[in-house]
């Protein structure tokens, strides 16, 4: 039986790796992957806490599935945007998109 703290540590690690990646990476795809990591960290949290606090309930699990669905849609949109950015700027570097700079 894996203790529940391990799940939390894993989730926290994933979350901060995701944030770190999002902030430090310049590649749009890498940033998207980092966002996915953050989402997965949340999913693990949902599942673990559901199991820990309400063993008979399934709400946390449903929420996890729901987040996975939304994440799929989100990555589809994001990839579409990235492709368009690439077409327009001939680059997948986030620093090249500064047209809206004040």
């Amino acid at each position, binding site marked *: 039986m894996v203790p529940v703290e391990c799940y939390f540590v894993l989730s926290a690690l994933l979350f901060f790796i995701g944030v770190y990646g999002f902030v430090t990476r310049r590649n749009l795809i890498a*940033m998207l992957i980092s966002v996915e990591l953050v989402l997965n960290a949340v999913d693990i949290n949902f599942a673990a806490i559901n199991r820990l606090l309400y063993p008979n309930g399934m709400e946390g699990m449903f929420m996890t599935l729901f987040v996975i669905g939304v994440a799929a849609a989100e990555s589809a949109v994001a990839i579409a945007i990235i492709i368009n950015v690439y077409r327009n700027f001939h680059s997948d570097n986030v620093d090249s998109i500064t047209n809206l700079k*004040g």
Partner: protein
Amino acid sequence: MIYELSFLILLLPLLSFIVLGLAGMKMQHKTAGLIGTCSLGLITILSYWTAFEYFTADRVNGIYQTIVPYNFTWLPLGNLHFDMGILLDPISVMMLIVISTVSFMVHIYSFGYMHGEKGFQRYYAFLSLFTMSMLGLVLATNIFQMYMFWELVGVSSYLLIGFYYPLKPAIAASKKAFIVTRFADMFFLVGILTFGYFTDSFSFSFAGDIVMGQGTTPFIEGNMSKAVAAGACIIPTALTLMFIGGAGKSAMFPLHIWLPDAMEGPTPVSALIHAATMVVAGVFQIARMFPLWIQYAPEAMSIVVWVGVFTAFYAAAVACAQSDIKRVLAFSTISQIAFMMVALGVSLPGHHGAFLDNHAQLGYMAGMFHLFTHAMFKACLFLGAGCIIHAVHSNEMALMGGLRKYMPITNATFLISCLAIAGIPFFSGFSSKDEIITACFAYSPVVGWIMTGIAAMTAFYMFRLYYGIFWGTENVEAHEHHTPHEAPLTMTIPLIVLSVITLGVGIYTTLAGFLGWGGSFGSFVSAAGTDYTIHFDTQIAATSTIIAILSICLATYIYKGESQPIADRLYKTFPKLHRAAYKRFYQDEIWQFVTHRIIFRCISTPIAWFDRHVVDGTFNFMAWGANEGGESLRSWQSGDVRQYAVWFITGSVALTLILLCI
């Protein structure tokens, strides 16, 4: 019915103004002039017809009825409402005749005088505008409508004084006239609003609001309760404020300063606007408000009297020293209008307690009569002066002298008008001025003697002017260089017509006054609308005639000869007095001092400073703050997504921590 056609009296000049104003520049001079003159001819015919119908209509209880052919509510405001309409009563019909006659004469005269002038069509357009506004002023059914036309008259006066707009003095004079009269009109407006606010009415008397078609008689006992509710001093205050407006328009001291300068305009304009019609608007206004004055503000009438007496004296004194012929006439106009003001002011209810006894009637009637006769002879004098200026190309008396042999018609008509203004029997001025002096004596012997003295001064300065132009030393040098000639027919015919009116009215009214005939001026226009028969007071008539003849003799003695030793000696003995009178007793300088040094410097400059620095400063500071804030915020919008993410995460963490701590 002629009364139903009375709207044409206002519509025709308006149409003529619009046509000439919009299409005039594409027309020949002659066409434009003909359009203006023909429309005015029609108006004259209509006015005479209206007057004939009105004065031959039956009186009710011996009183001419006030007829209101048109009246509609233009702007209802609760109990108050602004009406527009046409009102016919003895004085407005009398004014119709005066305005249309003089205006028609001026239109004809201008053909000759303005011949070949640039802007001829514009000139006729403005004349039409003026005629329309002046007629509207006298036909107004209520104070507010009168005020609107009053301002229109001011505008047309401004436009016509500044007709020669390339010339600097003309622009300055037009601005001066407009600003001074507007300043006075502000008081008029305050008076109207005070009156309207407290009495719920803009009508000329408390006889109630005028109902279409069924007019009211003058001097009906009004709605006293309104006046009582308004408080004892409200109506006198309102009327006095309105009088200040009237004093501005009628050039009463100290608001007279614009009129002499207004002579920069074309001479026919001076004859029409600044001698015969517009400047008597103030007198007309008091006559219009007369029911209110006499019922509610008899004490305030003494203001009118003393302002009038002082102005008459002051203007007569200044007129004795002017060298520009139009300025002499301008000051004489001021003096004569002051005579009318005094006449209205002295017509208080009698001491016998009667509401309107003969004495009160006399002053009112005399004032209106003088308005009528003065309009005719003063227009004639101004038009004559126009002929002279046309002939010698100057306003200065020094360049004239001995013109009688060159200009016989002008000479004769000018002489007739001078005799009329001097008050010689059988000339129109005699009858009216004599009635004014009689009314003054009945009011107070002091006023009576002062006015007699001023009448003597009038005779003196008018004959000084006459001899200075037509006799005296001829400026041979100037005349050889450019021989003066009689004016063309278009210019002399109006002179003849006006002097014939002066003479005819004079002969008839003088005879009627001495022999007690009816049908004189008093039969048509009197305070109560009744038939008032003029009887001269033989003693006063004889005294004033003798004094007038004496001062004419004095003027003849001093100014007729080739050389003028007495005038020169007087000039040398009292150089300061002459200089002061020539400079109009420094009135312009005083106004200049008061406005520039005191008002501009001590009041306007601090207010301007406050406006510029405090009011503007507040708003500028707010704008500056928003601008600076935007400038400092815009650098946050870096376009760097990762930086946004850092901010976002920092913010979320901070928020989470705050929520956890709470």
